[in-house]
Each structure stands twice: as C-alpha cells, then as structure tokens.
C-alpha cells in the first residue's frame, strides 16, 4: 500500500485518501467559454512513466486536498503539499513583476 505523508496529519495509509486525478492539468476559469480549454482539462493526459503530480484528498483525516508527486514506476513519493497552498503560491508568483 502507499503511505502518503499528509502535511498536517503525518504519514498515513492510502486508504485514508481519495484520489483526484492529474494535478498538472490547468483548470480553466469557471467562466471560460472555450470548449478546447475544457476538453484539454477533462480529457488530455500525458500518462508519464516517472514523476506525476496528482491530487489526493485526506478524506478520513483533515479533508484537505493535496498535491502528491508520485513516481508512477515505483510509487516513490517525492513531495506532498496542500493544493490550496500551492495554488496561493502560484498566484503570488504570477502577480509578481517579471
């Protein structure tokens, strides 16, 4: 079984988590009317043999959605962070002047 280290609860068995799919795809804004953008978000996946960023929710714990970087070849987990924190960090990065 996988053991995933929840950033606030510590290492837990994977059956405490709910899988949420690829975290590397970019979700269009809620009011984005572009079908292509939604099509890419919903259906287009790279399926890498190697590191993969994916969403997991610690559903029987703190209920936070996490981004887990898992190697699909050997299940080695390189990093786990809160999805919310990563998103906040990204948006501040975006805002900062180039």
């Amino acid at each position, binding site marked *: 079984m996988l*053991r995933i280290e929840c950033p606030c609860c510590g*290492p837990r068995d994977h059956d405490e988590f709910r899988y949420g799919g690829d975290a590397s795809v970019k979700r269009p804004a*809620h009011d984005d*009317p572009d079908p292509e953008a939604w099509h890419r978000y919903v259906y287009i996946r790279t399926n890498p043999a190697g590191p993969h960023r994916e969403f997991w*929710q610690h559903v029987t714990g703190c209920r936070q*959605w996490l981004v887990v970087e898992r190697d699909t070849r*050997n299940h080695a987990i390189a990093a786990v962070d809160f999805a919310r924190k990563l998103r906040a960090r990204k948006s501040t990065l975006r805002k900062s002047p180039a």
Partner: protein
Amino acid sequence: MSSNHKRLSMGGRIDREQPVEFTFDGRKLAGYRGDTLASALLANGVTLVGRSFKYHRPRGIFSAGPEEPNALVTLGSAGRREPNLPATTLELADGMVVESQNRWPSLAFDVQSVNGLLAPFLSAGFYYKTFMGPTRRAWMFYEHFIRKAAGLGRAGTDADPDRYEVRHAFADVAIVGGGPAGLSAARAAAAAGARVALIEQDFLLGGQLLAEPSDSAAASWLKQAEAELEGFETAALMKRTAAFGSYDGNVLGLVEQRDPTDPQPNGETRQTVTMLRARSIVFATGAIERPMVFSNNDRPGVMLASAARTYLNRFAVLPGKKIIVATTNDGAWRTAFDYAAAGAEVTVADLRPVPPAALAAEAAWLGVVVRAATRIVDLNGGHAVRRVTLNGPDGQSEAACDLVCVSGGWSPTVHLTSHLGSKPAYRDDIDGFVPGSFPAGRFGAGAMMGTYATGDAIEDGHRAGTEAASSCGKSASVPAPSKLDLDETATISLREIPSVGRGKAFVDFQMDVTTEDIELAHREGYESVEHLKRYTTLGMGTDQGKTSNFAALAAMATLRRATIPKTGVTTFRPPYTPVAIGALAGRATGHHFKPIRRTPMHDWHMANGAEMLEVGLWMRPYFYPQSGRDVNDAYVAEMRNVRQAAGLMDISTLGKIDVQGPDAAIFLDRIYANGFAKLPVGRARYGVMLRDDGIVFDDGTTTRLAENRFFMTTSTAKAADVLSRLEFLLDTAWPDLRVAVTSVSDEWAAMSVAGPNSRAVLSAAFPALDVSDEALPHMGLLESEWEGRALRILRLSYSGERAYEIYVGATAGEQLWSRLLEAGRAFDLKPYGVEALGALRVEKGHVAGPEIDGRTTLDDLGLGRMAGKRSGFVGDVLRRRPALQAPNRQRLVGLECIEDGKRLRGGAILFLPDEKPYGHGRGRVTSVSFSPERGHYVGLALLAGDVAAEGSEVVAVYPMKDDETVRARIVSPVFLDPQGERLHG
C-alpha cells in the same frame, strides 16, 4: 501408537518429556513437542506423504521449511479443514488430524498413478494445444475429468468456526528472518535504540543454526542471542509469523499462526494478519538449497542435504542409514559428516573433479566414501528409495541406499525484496541472484545477499541492523556481536548440468514439470522465462517454485546457449507463502463485512417489523408488513395511503451539507446548473449539479437559511462524492472563495410527511407553529426548536403530493417520529418504505439514481430548461458538445404497459415492434412501478430520441427472464398531475 524407530535417543531440540499424538490418514502416530509434522512422520518411518499434482507420483518429504514442494497435507476436518499445508512448517500438536492429498482410494494404491501412462498427454502446453481453436468446446467436456485428476487438496465446505484477525502495527526497524543475520541485525537495531520487530516463520528462532548439533558452539551462540534480544523491551520477537508480502511505503504483510501447542481457549484467533508499517526493513531471509536433476529425482527418500541435516540435528531423526550425498559444493559434506558420526554408512558423490582436500581428509577420518566427478543419473525406488545409478570417471555403477541427500548449491531468498518490482541481479561468484537494488529504508543481510558463511552473515546483519536503525534516526553506539565461526569452507559450487536417464527428471516437483517439458517449451519457441513459466506452469504451484526456479533457468540457459543473467528471472509476487483468504478478511465477514449506518429512527423500524433494505451502507425500511403480505402488496398500499391520506418516510439518509460564508451564493451559482444567487432567504430550490464533462452528477434541494448560509441536500448515494467535489473546487480551483462546506448528514434526523392530510398532521404535531400556506408556502422554510433541538420544516415534494420535510436534531429523531405518528393517527398517517417512495417518484416522473447514471445530460433527462441561458457553472461548456446534442441520443420517456396481466421490468431492453430483439436495442427501462393511478405498470426509460415520439409503441425485452417480451406505449414521464395541483391540495 508407533515406535519412533528412526528417532535417536539423544539430542535435538525436541522435548522427550512431552509426547504428542496425532493421526496421519487415520493412523495414530506419536512425536514430541518441538517436532514438525514432517519430522514426526520421518521419525515414524513414514516416507510416502503425498501424490504429485499431475502424474500422481509418490512423493515424500523433500525439505525442512516453507520451500517444501512435495509434502503437502490437509489439516483438520469439517469447517477447520485447511488443504495444501507443507508438513515441514506444521508445528506438531496433540490431536492433530492430518490427511494426505491427491490420492484415491489411498495413498499407497493410487488408481491415477497409472497417469504415468497418460503422461504423454499431460506434457507442457497440453491444455493450450488441445482446447484452443476448433476444439475449444471439448474443454467443457474434459475439464471435469482433468480437474479431478490434477489437483491439490480440497478445501472444506462448512463454515469455518475459527476467528481470524487483521491488525495494524508499527516498528522502527522490521527484520525479516530470525537466522544468524536477522538475529544480529535485530540486536544491533534494538541496541541502537530502535523499536524492532523480528519476524520468523518458524516456531524457533535460529534459521540455519537450528541445523547445527544442539550441543554445538552455534547452539550456545543462538541461546545467548535470544536471551539478549528478550532483554530489550522494545524488541518484539514474532515467531510463527511469515512475511508474505512486501509493499510500498515499507509495509510488510505478516501472517501469524496461533501456537498450536497451547491449550486452545475458545475464540482465540487462529491466524492473524498484521500489516506492519516499518520505517526501515532488514531482509535477512536466508537462502534455499537447490535440488539436483536426474531421473526419478522426485522419489520419496530424496531430500535436500541441509534438510537432512536439520532432521538429524534439530529433530534427532535418522531417516536413513545408508545414504548418498550428491553435491556440487562444500556445504553438503557437513551433512555427510554428521550422518557418518551418527552411525550411517555415507557416500559422497561430488560433481567437482577435485573436492577440497580438507573435506576429503575429514571424510577419510569418518569413513565416508568419496567419489569425485560423480553424479547420480538414475534412481530406483517406489515408495522409498532403493538404489541409485552413479556415473563417474570409472563409468556407471549402482549403489544401494535408503536416503539420498542432494545439494545443487544455494539460491538467496529474494522473493520479498522483488515484490516491489526490483529485478534480482545475478552474481557470478555465487552463481545466484541477489537483490538488484534497495529503495530507501530497505536493507539486506546474510545469505540472501550471498553472504553464506555464518560468521560473515552475523557481521553483515550487525551492519544492516545498525544502518537500518540509523536511517530512522536511532544511532546509539552498539557493541560488536559475539563471533561464531563454524569452520565453514568457502562454498565454491559447480553448476550442475541436468543429466537424464530413462525416467522423468523433475525440475518443479509440485507442478510436475520435467526437463522434457523445458526442452519442449524451448523447441516450440517459449524461450523467455516468463513464457516458459506459463507454458509449462513452472513455479506456479503453492510453493512458487522456491526450489525449482534456478534449475529451470539453468536448463533453459543451457538450451539457449545463453548465460543465466541473459536468460533472466521470472517476477516474484506476493504472497511468498500461501495465506488463507479468511486471514486476509480477518473479522470483516458476516455482519462485520462492512460498517452499517443506522438512522436515528432505526430502532423504531425494527420494533415495528419493517423489512429492511441495504442501501449502500445504510439500512432503510423497505416496506412495513402492516401494509401488505409482501413487498408488492405493501408498496402499492403505502403509495395509495400517501396519495389519499398521508405517509411518513424516514429520509435521514439524504446527504446534508452546511454551506456557509460570504461567497456561499457565488459558490452555489457555480456548482449548480441552475441559479441560486437570487434565491430568497427562507426558500428552497431543486438543483442539479453537473460534472466537468457535462454529465449530470447529482441532484437535491438547497435552502437559503440566511444571506450567507445554505442547507444543501444530496442523494443518499452521492453524499460523500458531492462533499469531496465541493472541497476539491474550493481547495484547488477557487481558493479565493470564502466558503466552508461541512457534512451535517449525521446531525439531522429527517422525515417526510406527504399526502393531502400532511398539513393537518403538522398542525396537530406542532400546535405552536403556524404551518399555513401563507407561513409555509411550497418551497418554503420554517425554522424553530423542538424539545430543545433545532427544527427545520421544508415544504418540498418528491411524491407529487403536498409534502413536508422535517429535520430535527438526530438525538430527538425517534421521539419526533413517534410524535408525528401519534398526531397523525386521526389523519391516517402511516409509515412507508423505500419501495413506495421509489414508486411515488416514478409515477410523478422524477429522475433518480437509475436515470442519473453517469451517462445522462440535463437535456437527456428533460431538465435542459433548468440551466436556461446561464453560463459559468461546472459542466456548462462541455454539455454543449455536438455529440451530446445528437438527435438519436437516448432521452427520458415514460412507458405504459399495454398488455393485460403483464408488467414492465427495470433493465429491460427496448426495441421497435418490428425489430429483431438483438443487441443493445434502442434504449432501456430504468425504473418501473405499478401505478394505482393508471391501473397498470408504468416506467421511466431512456430511449433513442429519433424513435421516442409520444404515442408510438416499443417492445421491452427482459433477458433475465427468457427474453420476456412486453409491449409498451411511449408517453410523458409525468404520469400523475402534470399541472402540479396536488402539491397545493
């Protein structure tokens, strides 16, 4: 009682003060505490223990551990019967009842051993060749006979009365294997300050040290090591525990056997599976000796040399007095010496041209005959070995014997370390495979790493234990382990090339795979080891080919003229040793199979005889027997009562979510296809959520309790999914929205009062509340308190009747339920169950789970108008995809049965009247009900839009009842009160 005539009077690790009685195939035998079943059988002179899988050849005891391919037995009787257990791992206990397997009518006279005659038909690839292609149908006919002929033991059919457990455990350092390396690793890790679990499948610690004489230096070392470990409070010594799997996250699957020699209190767990989460793991799994391949090498009386030594030194059994030791290496000579010292007449046949001089000298001194460059080519014997044919520099000769000890070298036990996919790596110097690599937190030590000499293994274990402890931050300094030098000479092994005479030469004893089979596979192109395995079934027995793997690789490598590493190894997968399904399930059987959810009114339903129905994890009232004889009678009566008077339904299972925050309305506007921002405070609205791909996700009602606070309900089935989805969107997509979502499903008892009398019931039950249509209009909310708990009354209808959903704090649910029934008595208020609930909604044309099945869109369900011209909500863009707008997409219709005395059935396939009923049809019936309103069966269906004109006919074919066929007319899905007048009635 038998005599133990092969037992020595002294020595061994058995307790002669504690005799143990057992039966084998009905024969009463005796052994001692400390015996395994195998050692006790050998002590009694029992050499024939089982029949082989395919050819029913007589087989005996080949090994002294879990690698045993031959001596598989069935233990116990009735529900406790457990087949295919290696006699070599069964700890002998009083009253043990054991049967041999795969023989008929008896072990000694097996009718099917004539299968020698059938053998040509049972060669590798036989099934594939015979039963594929045009002859495939023949399989149906022959399967029964073949399955009966080829097989292992049979499981019992009675329920198993024993208990099994699954437990969760933790350790800093787990050590697999209690041999010299494992003991040393455990000591080092524990001394470094780590919490240690030492896992040993045997009931004694020691591993190969147990094969040493019980008064030797090795024995004292072991005694000291054990005592030292027992001194650590932080070290758990898990005996009788096999590690069967090694998993991600440094998790080990362990199965522990109850101590069978303990007096057995009722209810004690027979087997416990422990999932052990370790911060680091040391694998000290040892090595398994390889057999040698020659004609009739499978006969009883042929035994691994190390096993023979174990039986002599650990169990004080002398299974033979005239023995041949056939070897490729130094190790087996120690068996020869020990047997000679015990008084046996011993000949060593060493394949090497010049065996080491030191060994030859000791042999001479002990009177052991040595024949260099000599191998066994054939063996003669039936139920016991009689003589072998040797081939050496002087040509062939025969030698009489009663025990043949073989050693083709050693294979490190790399099964567990390979479970995570790391391929073993070949090491030329030991002519064997060791673990290719270790992920972080995993270590190997001792023989499994190719470090065979005991002294070296102890040092290696010490190193690995120290490193493993240090990798989890425990690095107190540890004194060096006490040394143990067993005076072992370097084991330089010569690869054995199989040599075959007239009889079959077995590579895989358990699966009856011979050298001929490997040659055949090679000849037919199945050269890759993975193909070889599947073509010949090599290694696919319960022993996973522990003794056969290397010999088979070597044979294939020779045939391919390739090296061993080029030939490769097959993949090892869990379980390393068989694990009973019962042990894996633990206590999760029967009523503990899954947790059960009970509503606050559960006890009332039970006390009033409700038939209950499992809906997911929930128990819900199916129908109330007071309403009718069976469910069909009852639900129609319950429906009628709702339509004519009033019904009370437990709807506590609905998912309930508290949605709060300054941005709650914006949030709901985005997740529902219909708008919520403008919903006034105190009003409820039916809402539908879509998935990102535009397919309907779930539906329910959401009520605005305050400007920033909503009360959402979801379907029973989707409650958990909806909450997770909302959290996903808030955490990943819209973290800027200040909204909190919390499940309050358990917080509220919920009940629905439906029917023309429902308002009267409410007035009577809540005399202090104004429930008039002005105070509580359709889709209105009334908040109050009842018996100190919060109370919410929503005027909502699922059935099409005037109806109210009443929510009260869960602890007062049953009390309010009873109060409503009492107040409603004058108005014919009666409870109804989920069958009636479903029927009422079908009649009203409301969609539910069978229609919202993960494939339908708003338009398919006739709900397209809900979204109207809105945009910006989840699923909006992709629901407009052209494919989802195709005119022949299946959409919701109503069906009316137009044949007297017939009924519609959910799941029936729809065809046009003139069509051959074949294939997927034009659509399917999703929900049905008898309609008291219409006087016949009605149903909802999903039907291709191009043939769904109202008024036309279709044929519903039900494949589960011999294609039962019913004619039906397409109508509006709303069978009742299309104007919605009854909502206000």
